[in-house]
């Protein structure tokens, strides 16, 4: 018999001596406090954990219920996107962009295309620009629906998730009709978009907008102002505006803290200059309506409101779209003149930046991707200490991290 299996004597329970300071109860029993000793406990969360939205691993150090430290470990989904970008042709890299933020592939296509176009200096046809804007905003709705629905799951609200996926399903069906793919579109190409919208597609988008505006109220009633949800998220994970700027947070994370900045308005690209001048959409900000400015509730509510703003932009696009070509004069094999450019666009999660360096050939010299989630998760190490363990899931979920993008 090995040593492991040898029967061992169970430790005897310690006998406790009753100290003289013990209180005597009316029943005659003696009552006193035991000296309880606690020690720090390190908890490993992930990489396979539903609340980490992918394969992110977080080491959490706790003292009882209170988190005293958090350390984020990334890299479980690293697929060498930047190295691949230096080895494949310009257009061949486009499908790889789908795969970093797989919830908003249209926006990724757009960011990469705009960066390459900034070096090439090509002109984009009007219809293509409007179609791009429309698809990017439609995808923003889909992405925020996942963010909002799964955040409910994190907190423990199961039903809103299904409501969100109901509308997202329609959005994906719309994209399937226009480009054949449901998740990885590669629809927005260098020079324009690869295919015109099929007959009747724009009409269906309009119908989607009508229905969505009604359904939006359901999300609001069901989750956003739900008393339990508000209790779980208000005043939790507060990010001050200064901290948000210092950590380079962008998108709803930044606006949730009340910083009024949106790349679509402040550094406009494509048709957004025109859209902002027409006063089509507002930029929702965190106001601290239910708690403090910059808490989890604010970030979630900013995302919820942004969906409605996207609907306004889509309606504007449907109003101004006119017939014409959908792709510019682009050769089959793209050669980009020597030069470099950095282009940042407003992805649903924040600023998606592409830094492109070309030496004049068919392949990039450098293809840098600045993912918004990568910068947004950095703030967790600062946010987690001092919170309760149960709130850490609410805080991680409110960053709306997509691991495909942090790890690239």
């Amino acid at each position, binding site marked *: 018999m090995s040593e492991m299996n040898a029967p061992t004597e169970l430790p005897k329970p310690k006998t406790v001596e009753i100290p003289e300071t013990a209180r005597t109860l009316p029943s005659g029993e003696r009552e006193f406090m035991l000296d309880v000793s606690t020690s720090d406990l390190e908890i490993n969360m992930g990489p396979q954990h539903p609340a980490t939205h992918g394969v992110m691993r977080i080491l959490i150090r706790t003292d009882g219920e209170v988190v005293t430290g958090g350390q984020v470990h*990334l890299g479980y989904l690293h697929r060498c996107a930047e190295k691949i970008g230096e080895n494949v042709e310009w257009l061949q890299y486009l499908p790889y962009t789908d795969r970093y933020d797989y919830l908003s592939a249209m926006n990724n296509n757009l960011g990469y295309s705009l960066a390459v176009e900034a070096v090439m200096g090509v002109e984009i046809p009007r219809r293509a620009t409007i179609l791009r804007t429309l698809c990017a905003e439609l995808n923003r709705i889909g992405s925020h629906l996942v963010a909002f629905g799964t955040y409910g799951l994190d907190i423990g609200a199961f039903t809103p998730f299904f409501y969100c996926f109901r509308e997202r399903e329609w959005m994906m069906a719309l994209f399937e009709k226009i480009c054949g793919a449901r998740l990885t579109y590669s629809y927005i190409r260098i020079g324009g978009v690869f295919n015109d919208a099929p007959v009747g597609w724009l009409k269906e988008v309009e119908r989607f907008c009508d229905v969505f505006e009604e359904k939006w109220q359901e999300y609001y009633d069901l989750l956003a102002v739900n008393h339990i949800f508000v209790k779980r998220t208000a005043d939790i994970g507060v990010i001050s505006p200064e901290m948000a700027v210092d950590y380079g947070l962008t998108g709803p994370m930044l606006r949730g803290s009340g910083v009024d900045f949106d790349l679509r308005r402040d550094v406009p690209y494509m048709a957004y200059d025109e859209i902002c001048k027409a006063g089509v959409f507002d930029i929702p900000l965190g106001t601290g309506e239910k708690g403090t400015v910059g808490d989890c509730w604010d970030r979630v509510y900013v995302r919820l409101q942004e969906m409605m703003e996207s609907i306004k932009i889509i309606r504007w696009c449907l109003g101004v779209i006119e017939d014409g070509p959908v792709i510019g004069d682009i050769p089959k094999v793209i050669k980009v003149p020597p*030069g470099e450019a*950095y282009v940042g666009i407003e992805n649903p999660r924040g*600023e998606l930046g592409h830094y492109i360096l070309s030496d004049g050939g068919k392949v990039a010299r450098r293809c840098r991707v*600045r993912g918004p989630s990568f910068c947004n998760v*950095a703030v967790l190490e600062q946010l987690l200490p001092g919170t309760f363990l149960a709130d850490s899931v609410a805080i991680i979920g409110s960053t709306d991290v997509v691991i495909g993008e942090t790890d690239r």
Partner: protein
Amino acid sequence: MDFNSIHQRLLAINAPGVLSADTPRAADPEDKADKGRAGEAFVLIDRSEALNFLLAVRDDAELAFDMLVDLTGTDPDAEDEDLWLNLHLLSLAHGHRLAVKAMVPKANAVVPSMVAAHMAAHYHERECSEMFGIHFEGNPDLRNILLPDDWIGFPLRKDYEFPKEYHGVSCE
């Protein structure tokens, strides 16, 4: 502000380490080999002054580059002696951007850490150091972030050799 006025302002406030400005230009029609330079303008700075430069442009009211959007490296060529350090700054108040570049010699790739100016630099520096082998002096925690801790070599350098095996698993 457009790039030229940003550059003028940088010179006016005597921002530390500013060397020159590089703007896109058309190809010289006389010279067949010259293809010009497309894209966007950038400012070249001295790498040892990178932190002081960021602090200066952050605190100047007219420039107010309060957000470090991106920090990365570039290896232009295996034959080149220098790596590039690329910084991209954004001003939330004015909505203007600035691309900044610094030359970092491969033989002595050491740059002062920029965490003191922007916390956003921390994760970017960790990524940059594992991918390019640039050491950021003063960064408190320069562990690998995307790669395993025992990874050999700097993958985004042009002379990087792909590993033949990893922990006994053949990669060929």
